[in-house]
C-alpha cells in the first residue's frame, strides 16, 4: 500500500479516526455534547476530503476497494446524511435520560461501514461493510433501553440481519466455488463468458439477492421494516431508511452492472418481480396504517421498488436516474424523519397521526417543511421528488420497461392517498387539548431549513447536481 493509496482512502480513514477519537473521549471524558461535536467535525472533514481525493480517481486500493468517482459520490451522500442524522439526534437524545455519548460513536462506525460498501469491489470488503453497518445498527435501534418497542426493534433487526448475512455468505461461497474469484471484475468477466446458467451460480446469485433484499427492505424481504421503523428512535429510523439502504443500493448497482444484468434473463425477471411487488405491497399496505412511522416504512418499500426500475433499465439515463432519485430520496426521507424527530417528546416519538393534527396552525413552518417533504415523496413539482420520479420514468421509457413503468404510474396514484391523508391531518383544525410539545431545537430547525432549501433547489434547478452525477457515473459504465 503506497502513500497515494492511503490518501485515496482518506475519507474512510477520517471517519475511522473520528470514531476512535470519540471512543477515547468517552473513556476519559464522557460528555454528550463534545462527542457529538467530534462526530460532526469528523463527518465534515471526511466530506471535505472528497474533492481532494477526487483528483486521483479512479484508484484501486488493493483488490478490495476502489476509490472512483462513483464511490465518492455515494460517500458524499452518505456523509451528508450522517451529518444530518448526528445533528438531529443530539437534541433528540438530550430529551431522553441516560448516557448518549456512545450513540455518536455507533453512528460513526455505521457510517464507516456504509462508506466501505460504496467503495467495495470484492466479496470480502462487501461483507465487512455490511457487518460493520449491521452490528452498529442493532445497538442504535435499541439505543433507548427503557423503551420496549426499541428493544423489540433492535432484536428483530439483529435476528433478520444475521439471517440475511448468512444468506449472503452462502451465496458468495457458491459463486466463488463456481467462478473461482471474489473480485467483482473477475466475476463479471467470467459470467459474461458463461452466463448465469449453472444451478450453483444461479442459486448463489439469488441468495445474494435475498440477503441484499433484506437490507433494501424490498418485497418479499420487507417484513422487518415497519416494526423496526416504528420501534427505533426517529433519527435511527432516518439513518436506516437513507444511509443504510442507499449504500447497499450503490453496491447492488455496482455489482450487477459488473455482471451485466441486462444480459441475464433470469435476474431481470427476478428484479422485475421484486420491483413491481415492492411498489404494490408498499403502497397498498401503507393505506392501512395509522402510525406515521409505519406509513413511512411502507412508503420507503415502494420507493425502493421505484428505484429498482433504474437497475432494470440500461444506459446512462438509468444510472443518472438512480443517483438522482437516491439523492432526492435521501433529502426527502431525512426531512420527514427530521420533522418526526423534532416533534418527538420525552416519552414517545411523534408517530401517531393525532400528533400532527392542526400542525399547520400551531407550527406553520414545521408544517410547511413536512408538506414539502410529503409532496416530494408523492412526486409533485417544485420538489426534488418530482425530478427524481421524472428521471426514473424517463429511464424506464427509454428502455421500454412497460410493465414496471405502468406499475409505477398506478402506484404513484395510490401513494397520493396516504401522503395526502397526512397532509389533511396537518391542515385540519387543531385539537382542543394540545399535548405538551418539545421545545424548539436550534440544530433541528437548522437541519430542516437546510433540507427544505436543498429539496426545492433540486426540484427547481437540478442542472448542477445532474452534471455532478453525470461526471461520476462514467466510472461505473
Amino acid at each position, binding site marked *: 500500500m503506497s502513500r497515494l493509496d492511503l490518501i485515496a482512502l482518506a475519507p474512510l480513514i477520517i471517519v475511522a479516526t473520528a470514531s476512535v477519537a470519540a471512543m477515547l473521549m468517552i473513556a476519559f471524558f464522557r460528555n454528550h455534547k463534545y462527542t457529538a461535536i467530534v462526530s460532526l467535525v469528523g463527518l465534515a472533514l471526511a466530506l471535505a476530503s472528497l474533492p481532494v481525493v477526487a483528483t486521483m480517481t479512479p484508484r484501486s486500493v488493493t483488490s478490495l476497494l476502489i476509490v472512483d468517482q462513483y464511490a465518492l459520490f455515494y460517500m458524499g451522500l452518505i456523509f451528508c446524511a450522517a451529518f444530518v442524522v448526528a445533528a438531529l439526534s443530539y437534541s433528540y437524545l438530550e430529551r431522553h435520560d441516560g448516557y448518549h455519548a456512545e450513540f455518536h460513536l455507533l453512528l460513526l462506525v455505521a457510517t464507516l461501514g456504509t462508506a466501505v460498501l460504496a467503495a467495495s469491489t470484492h466479496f470480502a470488503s462487501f461483507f465487512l461493510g455490511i457487518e460493520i453497518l449491521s452490528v452498529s445498527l442493532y445497538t442504535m435501534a435499541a439505543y433507548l433501553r427503557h423503551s420496549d418497542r426499541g428493544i423489540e426493534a433492535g432484536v428483530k433487526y439483529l435476528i433478520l440481519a444475521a439471517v440475511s448475512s448468512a444468506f449472503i455468505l452462502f451465496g458468495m461461497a457458491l459463486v466463488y466455488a463456481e467462478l473461482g474469484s471474489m473480485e467483482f471484475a473477475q466475476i463479471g468477466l467470467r459470467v459474461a463468458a458463461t452466463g448465469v446458467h449453472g444451478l450453483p451460480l444461479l442459486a448463489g446469485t439469488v441468495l445474494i439477492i435475498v440477503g441484499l433484499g433484506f437490507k433494501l427492505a424490498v418485497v418479499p424481504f420487507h417484513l422487518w421494516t415497519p416494526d423496526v421503523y416504528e420501534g427505533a428512535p426517529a433519527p435511527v429510523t432516518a439513518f436506516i431508511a437513507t444511509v443504510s439502504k442507499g449504500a447497499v443500493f450503490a453496491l447492488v448497482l455496482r455489482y450487477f452492472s459488473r455482471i451485466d444484468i441486462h444480459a441475464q434473463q433470469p435476474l431481470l425477471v427476478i428484479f422485475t418481480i421484486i420491483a413491481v411487488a415492492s411498489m404494490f405491497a408498499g403502497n397498498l399496505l401503507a393505506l392501512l396504517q395509522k402510525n406515521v412511522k409505519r406509513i413511512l416504512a411502507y412508503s420507503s418499500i415502494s420507493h425502493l421498488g421505484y428505484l429498482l426500475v433504474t437497475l432494470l433499465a440500461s444506459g446512462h439515463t438509468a444510472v443518472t436516474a438512480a443517483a438522482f432519485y437516491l439523492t432526492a430520496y435521501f433529502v426527502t426521507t431525512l426531512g420527514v424523519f427530521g420533522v418526526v424527530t423534532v416533534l418527538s417528546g420525552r416519552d414517545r416519538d411523534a408517530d401517531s397521526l393525532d400528533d400532527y393534527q392542526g400542525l399547520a396552525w400551531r407550527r406553520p413552518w414545521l408544517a410547511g417543511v413536512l408538506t414539502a417533504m410529503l*409532496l416530494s415523496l408523492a412526486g*409533485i*413539482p417544485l420538489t426534488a421528488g*418530482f425530478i427524481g420520479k421524472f428521471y426514473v420514468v424517463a429511464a424506464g421509457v427509454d428502455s421500454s420497461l412497460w410493465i414496471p413503468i405502468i406499475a409505477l404510474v398506478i402506484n404513484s396514484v395510490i401513494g397520493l392517498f396516504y401522503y395526502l391523508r397526512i*397532509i389533511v391531518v396537518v391542515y385540519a383544525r387543531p385539537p382542543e387539548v394540545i399535548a405538551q410539545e418539545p421545545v424548539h431545537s436550534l440544530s433541528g430547525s437548522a437541519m430542516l431549513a437546510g433540507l427544505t432549501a436543498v429539496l426545492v433547489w433540486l426540484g427547481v434547478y437540478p*442542472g448542477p447536481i445532474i452534471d455532478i452525477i453525470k461526471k461520476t457515473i462514467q466510472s461505473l459504465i
Partner: protein
Amino acid sequence: MILAWLIMIPLIGGLAAWLLDQKNSALARWISVAALILDAALLISYWPTTSSQLTLIDHRWLIDTTWEWIPQLGVSLHLAVDGLSLLLIALTLFLGIIAVVCSWTEIRERVGFFHMNLLWILSGILGVFMALDLFLFYFFWELMLVPMYFLINIWGHDNRVYASLKFFIFTQAGGLLMLLSILGLYFIHGRDTGVYTFDYSLLLGSSLSPATAFWIMLGFFIAFVVKLPAFPFHPWLPDAHTEAPTAGSVILAGLLLKTGAYGLLRFVLPLFPGAAVTIAPWAMILAVVSIIYGALLAFAQTDLKRLVAYTSVSHMGFVLLGIFAGTMTALSGAVMQIVAHGVSTGALFIIVGMIQQRIHTRDMERMGGFWSSAPRLSGVALVFALASLGLPGFGNFVAEFMVLLGTYQTSVLVTIVAASGLVLAAIYSLWIVQRVFHGEKKGAVKLAELSSRETWMMAAMVVVILWLGIFPRPVLDTVAPALNAIRNSSTHAITIAPGGAQQ
C-alpha cells in the same frame, strides 16, 4: 421577460399576502388584488402593440422567450404567447380578480394562506397557457393542483376532504398518463433526430408511425379530457365544485377546466394531426354524450351548486365538440365558449355562493321567492341563467351557435343531438329562476340585497358577457391567426420555425 413577470407577480404577491397576514387580514386581500391588477396592467400595456402584430401571419408567436433550465435533459424555460394564449391570460386575470373580490367576506379564517393558494393557482394556470416546453408544461400542469387541493381541503364545505382527494387523484392520474406520453415523444424524437428536447416547436416536426402516434396522443387526450371534463371522466367535477369555496369554484369552472381545452388545442391537434383525425369521431361522441348527460343530471339535482356544476359538463361538451369538428367555425366557437362559459358559470357560482353565505344552505327545496327581497341579486341571476341557456345577445349564444354551425358541415346527426342540449339547457336554467327567485317564499328567510362591492363585481361580469355576445369580433380576431396556425400544422403537419419577436 414580460411573460416571466406575468407568472412571477402572483407568486410573489401570494407569498407577501401569506407573510403579512399575521398583522392584518385585509392587507392580504388588498395585496392579492394589487398583484393581479398589476399583472393585468402589464398585459394591457402590451396589448396595443400585439393587436397590430396579430395580422402578420408569419409571426407565429407574439412573444417568444427561452432560457436554459436543465440543458442536460433538453429542458428549457420556453414561454411564448399567441392570440389564443393572450386571450386566456386575460380571462385568467379577470376571473382571478373576481375570485379575490368574491371571497372578500366569505373567507374569514387563515386569510393570508388562502390568498397565497389562490394566487399560486393563477400562476400555475398562467404558466400552462404560456409554456412551450413539454416538461415546463407538465411542471405547471401539476403545480396548479396542489394549491387547488388546499383550497378545497381547508376552506371547502362539509364533504371537502373526500372531494379534494377525488379531484387530486383524478387529475394526477391523467397527468401521469400525459407524462408517459411526453416521455415517449421525447425519446422517439430523440432517437430519430439525435436531438433530445422537450421543445414544442422542435417536437412539432417529429414523424411518428400512425400506431405510435395514436398511443402517445391518447395519453395527452385522456389527461386533457379528465380536466375538461367529458363523460366518463367527469365524476370528480361535481364533488370538487360543490365542496370548494366560491373562489375555488370560480377558478375551477372558469380556468382549470379551460386548461384541458387549451391542451387539446395546443398539443393534441398540432402534435398528432393524423391521430387526432382518427380519434375525432370518438371525441365528438363523448362530447355529445357529455352535453346531454350533463344537462340531464343537472336537472336531477336539488343542490343548487351541484346543478351548476353539472351544467359545466354540458357546456364543456360544446368545447370538445368544437375542437374536434374540424372546421374553422367550430374551432372559433370552441374558443368563444371557453371564454363565455368561464364568465357565465363563474358568475353563477358566485351567485350560489352569495345565496349560501346569506341563508347557509344550497338546497333548492328551501329557496324561493327571493326576487321580492333581493331584486338586484335576482336580476343578475336571471341574466346569467339566460346566458347559460344560450339566449342571443350573450357570449354563450355566439359560441354554441358557431360550434353547431361548424359541426353541421362535418356531421348533421351529431349537430342535431348536440342542439337538443340547448333545449335541456333552457329547461334547467329557467327552472333555477322559477324555483329560486320566483315562486312562493319558503320560511321567513329574507335574502339580503347585494352590497356595493358585489354589485360592482357582478356588473363587470354582466358587461363582459354582453360584450362577448354583441360584439365578439375582437375576441375572434385575436385568436384567428393562432387557430389558423393550429389548423395548418394539423392539416399539413409542417414544422413551424420558432421565430417571432424575441423579447
